[in-house]
């Protein structure tokens, strides 16, 4: 709430400092679990069950990270491939659809948008069971392409809606001018609409990558026990084996969080744009 009445102005300096302090405290409380993950990932095996636990990794060790390098690299590689595949599939499917819905005014476009909204509300576990039944018959269980297709269902409806929203912002005159120049719809899409929608492509790609990277439901139903398991299953097996090496588990968790961290640091504006798409004022 803006307190910009002149009467309050002299007090602002001190009061904002208090607010900053409160804000820092709240953020610290909120991010404590993240800190704890880091802390445990550096904790030595013998200190793990110490009571009370060390609040700082006083005798820090890299044992946990060594275990990640030894055991988790294949999982990370698989996750990377699946993430990139999901991004490619999602953008390929969604960008043309967004263009058509935003600019070409197709008959029945409203119904399609509605179905896309409804599609997002279907619980993942239901989709997983359906995919399982289908993949079992097609022999697509334990396969990377199968998981890419399944993971893309997390992102495609969202992507179409984002593209539609962004592309409706492209001035119609620009596209009409192109049509007069004789550019066909495909040309217009490829050489005008898509380059102008770079930002939305980035937003969609980031989220598609993040969701497929984080996916657990599809992974655990469709590729569990196979040769290509993503990192989420790597962590899950770690926990499930009644493994007591919590530094290794938490180190894997830290590594699995890296894409999220990178995205937050480098692409925060795209994240904010994705969450509220355009509602950010500052």
């Amino acid at each position, binding site marked *: 709430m803006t*307190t910009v009445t002149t009467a309050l102005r002299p007090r602002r300096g001190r009061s904002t*400092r208090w*607010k900053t302090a409160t804000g820092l405290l709240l953020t610290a409380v909120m991010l404590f679990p993240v800190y704890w993950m880091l802390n445990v990932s550096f904790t030595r095996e013998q200190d793990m069950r110490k009571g009370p636990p060390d609040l700082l990794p006083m005798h820090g060790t890299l044992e946990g990270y060594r275990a990640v390098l030894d055991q988790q690299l294949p999982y990370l590689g698989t996750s990377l491939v699946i993430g990139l595949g999901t991004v490619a599939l999602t953008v390929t499917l969604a960008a043309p659809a967004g263009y058509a819905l935003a600019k070409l005014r197709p008959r029945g476009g409203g119904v399609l948008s509605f179905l*896309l909204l409804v599609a997002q509300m279907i619980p993942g576990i*239901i989709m997983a069971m359906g995919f399982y039944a289908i993949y079992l018959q097609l022999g697509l269980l334990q396969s990377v392409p199968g998981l890419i297709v399944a993971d893309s269902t997390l992102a495609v409806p969202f992507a179409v809606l*984002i593209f539609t929203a962004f592309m409706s912002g492209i001035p119609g005159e620009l596209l009409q001018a192109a049509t007069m120049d004789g550019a066909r719809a495909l040309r217009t899409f490829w050489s005008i609409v898509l380059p102008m929608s770079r930002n939305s492509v980035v937003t969609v790609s980031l989220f598609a990558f993040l969701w497929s990277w984080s996916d*657990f439901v599809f992974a655990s139903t469709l590729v569990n026990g196979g040769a290509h398991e993503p990192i989420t299953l790597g962590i899950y097996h770690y926990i499930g084996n009644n493994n007591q090496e919590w530094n290794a588990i938490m180190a894997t968790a830290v590594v699995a969080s890296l894409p999220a961290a990178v995205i937050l640091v480098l692409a925060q504006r795209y994240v904010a744009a994705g969450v509220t798409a355009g509602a950010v*004022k500052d």
Partner: protein
Amino acid sequence: MKHTTQLPDRRPVQSRNGAATAAPPPAPARARRRPASQQWAAWAFLAPVTLYLALFYAYPLYRNIDLSLRNYTVRSFVQGDAPFTGLENYQTVLDDPVFAPALLHTVVFTAVCLVFQYVIGLALAVFFHQHFRLSATLRALFLVPWLLPLIVSASTWSWMLNSDSGVVNAALHAVGIDPVNWLTSPSWSLTSVIIANIWIGVPFNLVVLHSGLQSIPASLYEAAALDGANAWQRFWRITFPLLRPVSAITLLLGLVYTLKVFDIIWIMTKGGPADSSTTFATWSYQLGFGNLLPAFGPGAAVGNLLVVAALVFGLVYLRVQRKQYAS
């Protein structure tokens, strides 16, 4: 931000699993001629996604309904000759002693998570709406729990809530409270997964409500302050009523997404101990994939009940949203 300024005033909002909530573009009122060639082009662009929806949404859903209406065993699952049994699977599920607790846990989990996520999110949104140094940076940091893979959050919380070596019990011990068996006692397991899920859901509420706050004109607050309204009155008389549309959207969307929370519960407790934290989502998975002898039929039946619930609230949400855009 260039791309944000291009946007029309429809604001897609999107939650953990990517619910974009943009209303479909309203059909242009002016009936301009739509040339036939453009129609062909439009549907050529839409064809991949339409096919995709049919193959990868409609068909799995259909398979799921089919699963729930037949008596599947592992053998007939592969060969596809399971006998049609009508609603027998649904009857089995309703008669199951797990049904009542699962229903109760689903309702409690959803309601408690929603209330806390919303209240905490709103309080934080109001706080961060003030101007102070680092306000924007700290708000961005609040997104972290929302961006982390659920398995990461769930396993971190599992270790923090560990009975013997968890930091939560250590903190309780420090203030003289006896240790709690967060994940291993039937009376606490549901509370534990609720706590973790609230932590994950707060950022979404914060961000959406914060964006809602920004559309309330500052002049209203200035006028109220001149009239001598204190902060508390300004909140209840201005912020809260004007935020009602955004609140409704946030809560309804939260409802649809909390109903289907699966990862957190499954990873932390597997719905146990003794089904004490099982919800429809985990029960469905448990039936279909969690046992050596899978019960696909009943599993799909539970899942379909969940779909119906999610869709009912989802449609309410779309209706509310459509009405708000119309006004």
